[in-house]
């Protein structure tokens, strides 16, 4: 009778401890903005990794997403004689939802997993301990540049995703399926306004914070709880990072949408 209660108590304490540690990790990362070492060049380097090198995969995803949206949307709108509003359907879907969410999920898989793995390997090879012993704040050196880079890069990637997706939608809707080009742009420009764009940007910023926070946290503490530092712990940390940050993105997407709509 006592053991299940003990187990539940121990589990609860572990979760509370982890939540507290996660919170303190975020605070230390923010504090790292004003602490040495300097942030400019490390942040630029991370922007190149997170942002520039994601252009191709996000562009590819955005193009095909826009194309599929147009394909599905055209046939459904034709039933109501409203194919002229195809531009609105594609534009609003991309700008409000698909642009920020898809770019965040791709970023999680590409850059988030790399962050978790890289920092996890540093943990198991005692490189984080070495930073601490050199009196260098490991949060300031490792996580803060990634945090700043992600906040800058992800909204830009989301905008890029929107543009390429709309072009893809236009190519299929107008070019292939024969929708009216003028109607496409008219419905797009009248339907998509600043409230949609701001929702997309707010989502992108929130997603970027969540992705970096979760992924760098998982890598930073890889193996620490088990007291065992090896490749298995890095692998597990990377997987957990991608899964947890993906779930966080999807949940926060719903929350932000419900608040801003």
């Amino acid at each position, binding site marked *: 009778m006592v053991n299940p209660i003990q187990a539940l108590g121990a589990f609860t304490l572990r979760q509370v401890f982890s939540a507290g540690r996660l919170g303190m990790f975020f605070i230390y990362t923010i504090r790292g903005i004003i602490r*040495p070492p300097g942030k400019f060049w490390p942040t630029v380097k991370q922007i190149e990794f997170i942002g520039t090198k994601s252009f191709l995969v996000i562009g590819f995803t955005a193009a095909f997403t826009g194309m599929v949206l147009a394909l599905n949307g055209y046939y459904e709108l034709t039933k109501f004689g409203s194919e002229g509003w195809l531009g609105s359907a594609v534009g609003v879907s991309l700008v409000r939802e698909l642009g920020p969410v898809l770019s965040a999920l791709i970023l999680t898989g590409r850059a988030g997993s790399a962050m978790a793995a890289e920092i996890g*390997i540093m943990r198991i*090879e005692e*490189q984080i*301990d*070495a930073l601490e012993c*050199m*009196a260098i704040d490991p949060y300031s050196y490792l996580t803060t540049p990634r945090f700043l880079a992600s906040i800058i890069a992800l909204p830009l990637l989301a905008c890029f995703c929107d543009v390429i997706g709309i072009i893809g939608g236009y190519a299929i809707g107008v070019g292939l399926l024969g929708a009216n080009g003028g109607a496409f742009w008219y419905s797009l420009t009248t339907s998509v306004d600043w409230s949609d764009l701001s929702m997309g940007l707010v989502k992108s910023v929130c997603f970027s914070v969540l992705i970096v926070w979760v992924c760098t946290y998982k890598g930073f503490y890889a193996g620490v709880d088990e007291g065992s530092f090896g490749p298995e712990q890095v692998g597990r940390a990377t997987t957990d990072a991608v899964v947890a940050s993906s779930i966080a993105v999807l949940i926060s997407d719903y929350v932000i949408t419900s608040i801003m709509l």
Partner: protein
Amino acid sequence: MSSENLIDIRGLNSFYDHRQVLFDISFAIPKQQVTVIMGVSGCGKTTLFRHLTGLKKTEAKQIVVDGQDLGTFSEAQLMQYRRRIGVLFQSGALFNSLSLAENISMPLKVHTKLAEETIRIMALMKLNMVGLAEFCDYMPSQMSGGMKKRAGLARALIMDPEMLFVDEPSSGLDPITAAGLDRLILNLKDARGMTVVVVTHELESAFKIADLIVVMDNGKVMAAGRPEEILENKDPRVQQFLNREADPHKIHMDAYYERLLGDTWRSF
């Protein structure tokens, strides 16, 4: 050579969760001398090392450094302490994305306002000391384990620390390179008055460089003293360690069968 103590360890106990790994450790580390902490694998040497470098939290009044209680250090005080020490980890702990020169230079870039060229010269001087000057632009992945360890030592020395902590310096090194490291450690003590703490299980190296030897077993200090005192120590476990004698092979039959057969054994 000063005989006063730089670090006093008084009744240090250490735990991982509920498992105690250090039991009432007490000894003093003298200033400007080489202290070697030895013992079998799993005796608690690395845990003690982590306490001394501030990587593991210490309770109050258990470790006193230069009159200050390490257990009550604020974050700022801990950072100040770490600026006084250099640490060489067992694997070198070099940063994979930086070249050798960039690795060595990092503490100088963060903690000083020296010009880039001056920093590079200082890094090259330290690399020269460990015989790696020609490899300054190599990446860690291009180097052997021994080279990484020597590079780690160069990085530990770049700020000319007062205290140097070295974890298993000779492990993975060939005898010639290991002898070179031993000589370097002795030079650091003699020429720079550095206090050096070495964690190792290499007997030959330990007796060559140590002014004080501490022998640990099962989380306790078995013996502490000058090398000649350790050699004359009558404790059987100390003698077994010094003579490199294997533990006698004992099998407790009941426990052995239970491990093999589990519940089936209990039914016999």
